[in-house]
């Protein structure tokens, strides 16, 4: 982290519950790019992605009292808020869900290699590691994570039974954890 200021997750939560703007600024600096990346993967349009990102942060700010640390990590909560908001926006705008995963990812990577402050996240390092993830494992994560597919929709999309979706998702994430360690 390049910032002098660093909060533990517990500190961050307490400060945000008190509507501390400095903490919120820290939250934005550290997580906006990741959230924007998720939105961008789903909508593939920069302006729309940034509009949704603004809305997502406002929602995080306004609804922070709903965050319960006993139910999960803060960043995961933020990701889920952002993903649900993006799905709602796409639905309300009449977008049809499209499978973007098989498309050329270079266009995406070119974009964020150019604009990302990669020192902060070591994005390039992470993405190099993710190359090791098997395609059939990666696709199941991406469908859920970046396309907002339900397990039923994933089951239909890939043509595997619902029960298999759960176990394959588990093995995919186990693999991911192994790669990231």
């Amino acid at each position: 982290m390049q910032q002098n200021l660093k909060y533990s997750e517990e500190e961050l939560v307490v400060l945000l519950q008190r509507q501390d703007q400095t903490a919120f600024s820290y939250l934005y600096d550290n997580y906006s790019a990741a959230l924007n990346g998720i939105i961008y993967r789903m909508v593939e349009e920069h302006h729309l992605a940034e509009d949704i990102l603004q809305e997502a942060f406002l929602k995080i700010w306004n609804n922070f009292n709903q965050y319960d640390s006993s139910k999960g990590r803060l960043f995961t909560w933020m990701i889920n808020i952002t993903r649900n908001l993006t799905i709602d926006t796409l639905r309300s705008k009449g977008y049809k869900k499209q499978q973007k995963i098989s498309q050329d990812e270079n266009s995406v990577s070119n974009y964020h290699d150019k604009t990302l402050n990669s020192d902060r996240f070591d994005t390039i390092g992470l993405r190099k590691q993710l190359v090791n993830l098997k395609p059939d494992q990666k696709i199941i994560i991406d469908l859920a994570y970046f396309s907002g597919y339900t397990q039923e929709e994933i089951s239909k999309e890939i043509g595997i039974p619902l029960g298999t979706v759960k176990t394959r998702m588990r093995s995919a994430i186990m693999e991911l954890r192994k790669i990231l360690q």
Partner: protein
Amino acid sequence: MEIKDIISSGLLEAYTMGLTSPEETSNVQAWIKQYPEVATELKSIEQAMESYAMAYAVEPGKDIKDKIFSKIEINHSVENYGTAKVYSINPLWKWAAAASIILLIGSSILNYVYYNRYTTINTAYLQNQKQIEDQNNQIAQMSSDLNAVNNDMSVVQSKYSEPVALHGLDAAPDAAAKIFWMKNTGDVYIDPSNLPEAPAGKQYQLWAIVDGKPVDGGMIVKTKKGDKYQIQKMKSFGKAQAFAVTLENEGGNPTPKGTMYVMGKM
């Protein structure tokens, strides 16, 4: 469900990605409270997925942060926790604040100017008011004086009035007084204006001489305002042979005790 089965079910992964049903969600939340191992497992899954999200991060435009903060500040209630914070203000409010300060200054200047004008005009108004009051008082005084003169004249001019001149005696040879006796009614008036000034504590008293005896005719008073004597009504007599005025102690006496000043016969 045993801990091992929970961990291998895939539910924790689905929960992390928000894919569980409401029922599954509440089950997972109960397990992570109940079993520390499940909680640890969930945390690892979450961290893995967070790293995955970080790997695909796309830096948003530089202006987005300001846009978000301008929106949260509008709704932000004024609360201070410890350190002082700098809040940026919507430019519209800055203009509004500047405009209201200018209006305030303008209004203050006008206030000052108008207050000065008000003071000047109010002073002039009060002076006029006092002049009018003084004049009214003068008019009232003149009118009252005129009334008195009219009264005097009506007594003097009445066709029934019989004047009796009272002449000065040894005590004050120059003194004089006049009685006007109304033949029709028996009313008695006296004009004491040529009597010398009565000393302090003394008062002139009128006497009518009826059948050789002095009868009290009343005290001669000065006008309310000053020291002037004017024609005044005294006690009435059916008949009288003469009138006299003596100087008595204030309030008078039932029979004359003081020096006689003037006297006159009918």
